[in-house]
């Protein structure tokens, strides 16, 4: 599993393979030149708009944003947090208010809360002359390249390919043969659909593995434990269970623990949570997938900020630099220790100008 090592090396050596596209004159030597401008009180206001900080995912996003602000030599508290608490109306109203306050001198990264809210947010920012990056929520017809430079980029995460790869880790741990069951998220959620699809794709290459059943457990630990118990009644011996989230993997694992089957039945999760990584190290789980929200929090804000100060011109970038899938890290037993050391026990040092460096293949 050299994937992780290669990934970490890529970050550590700060390779700027895609750095700023063709923006010549913006090499490493030019970067220190920006720093005084950042500390300058007249630089653009930086803001992250998201749901709230009590959720580990959004907390990591916000921390990444603060790390970027700090990397500019500024006080992390200068980052403005617009908390929408799951309300699209509040999300838009906060953005409009901040645009008015800053006269449009704003670098904003935002999850617009739902798809339809993406357009009014982007239009408001573009009209005021600010710069915005979006993640996750936007409609399919909304594209950064339709707004000149002001809508800098959009990032989301596809689960299909990572779910495919992580399912293969479980199948390999089963010795490439046997009987497997699946626990999915809420059936109508896009990540739930994508993660099931990824597993189905991987299954095609394993003719000796039989998928007994795939049932939704609604991302819920207790429900997953109950469904897994029922699976054990119905099928008897089960060699592997693929779960669309770590929360459900924990439930499946405890159902197995009640039957003394931990370690025998291989368990795969998703989301790269700390506990899942620790369970992989203990040999109780086989894999999980991390989407690196900390990187997303810094990188998206960095893109908006660098566009706002004119460090690069978004409209000169290719489309795959403006709408892209963020990076996913597949963690297995072989690299769980590395991942824990580099991503959980410490925070990687990112080069926030290497915007597209660590991402998986673009759209």
């Amino acid at each position, binding site marked *: 599993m050299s994937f992780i090592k290669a990934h970490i090396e890529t970050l550590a050596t700060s390779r700027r393979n895609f750095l700023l596209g063709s923006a010549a004159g913006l090499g490493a030597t030019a970067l220190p030149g920006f720093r005084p401008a950042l500390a300058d009180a007249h630089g653009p206001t930086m803001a992250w708009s998201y749901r709230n900080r*009590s*959720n*580990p995912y959004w*907390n990591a996003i916000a921390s990444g944003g603060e790390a970027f602000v700090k990397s500019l030599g500024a006080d992390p508290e200068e980052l403005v947090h617009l908390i929408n608490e799951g309300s699209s109306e509040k999300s838009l109203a906060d953005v409009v208010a901040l645009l008015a306050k800053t006269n449009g001198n704003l670098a904003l990264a935002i999850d617009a809360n739902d798809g339809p809210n993406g357009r009014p947010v982007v239009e408001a920012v573009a009209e005021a002359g600010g710069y915005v990056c979006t993640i996750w929520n936007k409609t399919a017809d909304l594209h950064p390249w339709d707004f000149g430079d002001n809508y800098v980029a959009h990032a989301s995460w596809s689960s299909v390919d990572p779910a495919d790869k992580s399912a293969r880790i479980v199948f390999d741990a089963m010795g490439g043969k046997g009987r497997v069951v699946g626990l*999915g998220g809420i*059936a109508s959620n896009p990540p739930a659909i994508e993660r099931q699809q990824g597993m189905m794709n991987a299954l095609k290459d394993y003719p000796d593995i039989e998928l007994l*059943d*795939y*049932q*939704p457990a609604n991302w*819920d*630990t*207790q*429900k997953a*434990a*109950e*469904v897994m*118990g*029922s*699976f*054990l*009644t*119905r099928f*008897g011996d089960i060699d592997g269970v693929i779960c669309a989230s770590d*929360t459900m993997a*924990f*439930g499946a694992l*405890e*159902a197995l*623990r*009640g*039957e*003394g089957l931990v370690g025998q039945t291989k368990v795969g999760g998703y989301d790269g949570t700390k*506990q899942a990584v620790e369970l992989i190290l203990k040999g109780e789980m086989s894999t999980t997938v991390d989407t690196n929200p900390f990187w997303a929090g810094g990188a998206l804000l960095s893109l908006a900020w660098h566009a706002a100060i004119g460090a690069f011109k978004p409209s000169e970038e290719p489309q795959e630099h403006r709408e892209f899938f963020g990076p996913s890290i597949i963690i297995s037993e072989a690299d769980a220790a590395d991942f824990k050391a580099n991503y959980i026990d410490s925070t990687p040092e990112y080069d926030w100008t290497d915007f597209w460096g660590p991402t998986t293949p673009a759209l």
Partner: protein
Amino acid sequence: MALSDTTSSLAGAPGSGIYREAIVKWAPLLVLLVLIAFFAIMEPRFLSVRNFARIGISSAPALMVAIGVTFIIIMGSIDLSMEGTVSVSAILFAFAFLALGGTLASWAWLAVPMALIAGGFIGFLNGLIHIKLKIPSFMASLAMGFVGTGFALLLTGGDRIRIEDELFRSLLTVRWLNFPIMCYVALLFVLIAWFIQSRTTLGRNFYAVGGGEELAHASGLNVNRVRLMGFMLAGIFYAVGALLAVGRIGIAETATGNNFMFVSITSVVVGGTALWGGIGGVWNTVVGVLIVNVINNGMVVIGLPGWLQDGVLGLLVIAAVVLSTDRKSVSFVK
């Protein structure tokens, strides 16, 4: 002569009346047996001891929560705070357990009574708000449930806390006669609840309040005090449910309380305890929880597709309520 007339009218009319009463009394159990027979015919493995143990594991935490709310429903009130109470109790237990040593073999066992006290205290607050501010129990408890969930989130910051002590986890991992210890713990608390219901003044007062609050009040009963005690008792049972839920999955988190509201209220009603109060009891709830969990387990065991399960569960619950509650005495439903 007058005396015998009174007794005969108290006992109910002979013949069809007694027959009907017996059916009403045993209907929930019949529903449960029919369901078990149905799933067993569809898939013989449903009938194995190991599967009953699995149903027991999934029922135990929900049973404790459902018994707690049974007392409230008997009084004709409702308590919707269980999700928040379960989460807070579970998290406080986990924090205390880890802080005091992290294994039942140390002072950490104190975390168990502390969790029960926490649950009782939340129930007490719940009842106090309901009585003193004169807010309907529906609204007061729903609001307290949100406060509880919010408080749980504040405590954990969205993190989950793992309890890995093997002694505590023996609730799930150690089996006596094929059933894990948590099933026996649940049974013990069912017996305690049954004792409270049938052998204590408090238990009888719950029925008095539910059967006719004005009458109970006019007879000199301190109705508010009974209500307060009821909510406290419910809170303690929610905390027991929280402990079993943590024992089952080894994790305490804000989401520990999820789904308990639907499962517990449904179970109580399916078991034949009437939402208008005064009718039903602990054993009805035991049967109700088993009905809901047998349906949930059975649907997966017979291989019903996932997208059908929620709909089928809803229909089966309606059917079970129709079959197991006595609606003849009710002139209107609100």
